[in-house]
């Protein structure tokens, strides 16, 4: 036990401690034991690797974008190339990183353990969804090497159907396949959460991480098919030219927007909700307190999921939708902002009268709270239809969703990776350098994206390869920030890989956390628990944990 007063980390005695011989990593060896595995933890690792790979491709593209925007002219690359770069950046980051990031890695790894189950309900489907993801990913890579696509990730018709001659079909197929990958993941989670909970694990004893994944899964299952059909229609329109989105043949291009955003707006909640789940866990653990207003937070997740289906047309305010539906959608958009506000305040008040320590996951969580608050509030600028007219389709939008997606989701993802790293690998990451990385990321992020709010206010349109010179200075700041941000993202790769071999042995429960996943060895056994656990206490019940420790001490002594 470390008696250090400013950390809760308590590691076993490093001289005697060993990684357990029997664990899900050591169980079988050989490449096939991974490629054919049904083990949710191994699949999670597979996802983690592939997602990181695509994240860095997307990141590289982002770097290119920022470089191009250093100067007002499009001098680094031709406008065509630039269009392809930002399209691929969008497609990769959204469909191959953000949507699966937390659910497919952390969710996959943790949900069964948090519920005290041996595995997800449908292990084969789980593996299948990884393969689908990989197929999607490979298709995207193919698109890139065979000339890319320049429709923007939104595939706006009729541009995508009749006016570009790039690989729209391959990309469409990629998105279609990746979409089914996330459908199956979500389906798997819902079934698991309903049917695989261990004895005593009632709905209101589940960690909030599980709640938020439940909400996100609902969106995945019900939303994604609509994207699928929209993509199919685009493909048909493009190949056999049936005119369903072609005004000259009597079609309506806005119909595509409806179908597309019916998925793609809920998609942002698919991306952010799991992140919120992570934050609930870390905030509670590092302030040694039950989450303030557990039920409120739980239900706000579900509320977001439900309202998330009613707001899609706020992406079309200036596209000539009916003013009456503008009213409805704008109002509902305002409503959906409320649950997020609730969450933020509940997390804040979880700190109140806690006993707070500042390990890396907590730093990232603070980062999340700050940036997500900004991201959410700027969302209100756009939900209010009047200001939307001025701000939409400018860099304000870009800054807004990067604050939510990168500042929110990516911070949460990193928080989660650091938080559960010891559980996944059995070893600690190096604390000091990772704290540094967290701070660097935070600074770099703000420097990158805050200037873009001002650019948006000034009216700089998004997706511009060349821009009027007066916008340059802010763009230079943004690019400078991006460089720092890049460093902030490279650091974890390095030290986490390092820690795989040299990290300290973590022991079962380095954070003194209460979740069931911490009550078993790390890395866990293939079937997670030696005996099926029985949930006999509320979530985040730290007294219970202390009693457990007391018992152990007694039994040892």
């Amino acid at each position, binding site marked *: 036990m470390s008696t250090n007063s400013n950390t809760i980390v308590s590691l076993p005695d490093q001289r005697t401690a060993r990684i357990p011989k029997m664990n899900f990593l050591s169980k079988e060896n050989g490449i096939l034991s991974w490629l054919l595995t049904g083990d949710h933890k191994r699949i999670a690792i597979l996802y983690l690797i592939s997602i990181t790979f695509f994240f860095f491709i997307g990141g590289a593209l982002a770097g290119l974008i920022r470089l191009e925007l250093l100067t007002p002219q499009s001098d680094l690359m031709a406008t065509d190339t630039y269009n392809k770069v930002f399209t691929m950046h969008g497609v990769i980051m959204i469909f191959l990183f953000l949507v699966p990031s937390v659910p497919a890695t952390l969710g996959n790894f943790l949900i069964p353990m948090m519920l005290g189950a041996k595995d997800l309900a449908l292990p084969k489907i789980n593996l299948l969804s990884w393969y689908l993801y990989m197929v999607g990913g490979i298709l995207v890579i193919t698109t890139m090497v065979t000339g890319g696509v320049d429709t923007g990730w939104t595939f706006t018709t009729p541009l995508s159907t009749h006016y570009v001659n790039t690989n729209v079909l391959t990309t469409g197929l990629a998105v279609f396949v990746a979409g089914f990958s996330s459908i199956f993941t979500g389906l798997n989670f819902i079934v698991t959460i309903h049917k695989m909970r261990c004895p005593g694990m009632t709905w*209101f004893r589940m960690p909030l991480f599980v709640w938020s994944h439940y909400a996100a899964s609902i969106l995945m299952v019900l939303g994604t098919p609509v994207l699928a059909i929209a993509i199919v229609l685009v493909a048909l329109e493009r190949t056999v030219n049936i005119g369903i989105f072609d005004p000259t043949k009597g079609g309506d291009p806005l119909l595509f927007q409806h179908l597309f955003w019916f998925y793609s707006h809920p998609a942002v909640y698919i991306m952010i909700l799991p992140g919120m789940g992570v934050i609930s866990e870390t905030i509670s653990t590092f302030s040694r307190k039950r989450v303030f207003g557990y039920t409120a937070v739980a239900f706000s997740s579900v509320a977001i999921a439900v309202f998330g289906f009613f707001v899609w047309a706020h992406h079309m305010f200036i596209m000539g939708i009916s003013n009456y539906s503008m009213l409805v959608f704008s109002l509902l958009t305002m409503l959906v902002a409320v649950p997020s506000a609730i969450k933020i305040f509940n997390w804040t008040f979880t700190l109140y009268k806690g006993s707070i320590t500042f390990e890396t996951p907590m730093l990232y969580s603070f980062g999340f709270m700050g940036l997500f608050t900004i991201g959410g509030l700027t969302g209100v600028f756009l939900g209010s239809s009047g200001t939307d007219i001025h701000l939409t389709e400018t860099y304000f939008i870009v800054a807004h969703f990067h604050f939510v997606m990168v500042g929110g989701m990516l911070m949460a993802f990193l928080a989660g990776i650091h938080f559960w790293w010891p559980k996944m690998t059995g070893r600690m990451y190096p604390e000091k350098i990772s704290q540094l990385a967290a701070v660097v990321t935070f600074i770099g992020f703000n420097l990158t994206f805050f200037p873009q709010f001002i650019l948006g206010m000034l009216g700089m349109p998004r997706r511009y390869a060349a821009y009027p010179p007066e916008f340059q200075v802010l763009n230079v700041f943004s690019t400078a920030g991006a460089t720092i941000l890049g460093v902030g993202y490279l650091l974890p790769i390095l030290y986490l890989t390092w820690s795989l071999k040299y990290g300290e042995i973590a022991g079962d429960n380095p954070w003194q956390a209460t979740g069931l996943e911490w009550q078993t060895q790390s890395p866990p056994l293939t079937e997670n628990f030696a005996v099926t656990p029985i949930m006999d206490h509320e979530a985040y019940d730290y007294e219970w944990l202390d009693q457990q420790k007391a018992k152990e001490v007694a039994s040892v002594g």
Partner: protein
Amino acid sequence: MSEPIQHGVEHENDHGGHEHHVTPPIVYLVIFGCLLTLTGLTVGASYIEMGVFNPIVAIAIGVVKATLVVLFFMGVKYSTKLTKLTVGAGLFTFMVLIGMTLADYFTRAWGRW
């Protein structure tokens, strides 16, 4: 969406051997009969001039048929609350998609602002 709690409760006794219901064939036979008759009915109805009501009747009969299939062939009538909720959720979202999209198209004609 607050239903999950009920399942939480009901889920516990799911484990305690929730006995699987076997629908007797006679039920299937009757439903089968109804479906065929309704098919005949809807085809017949389509030959009668009812103006506005032709589509309404056709859809109504369709809904009845679908309900019969869902309730008996798919056995929702005898299945858990959870299954019922699932079906409900599906219909709900389906309606949201169609309803709110059509609402936009219908209201575009009103007023010219």
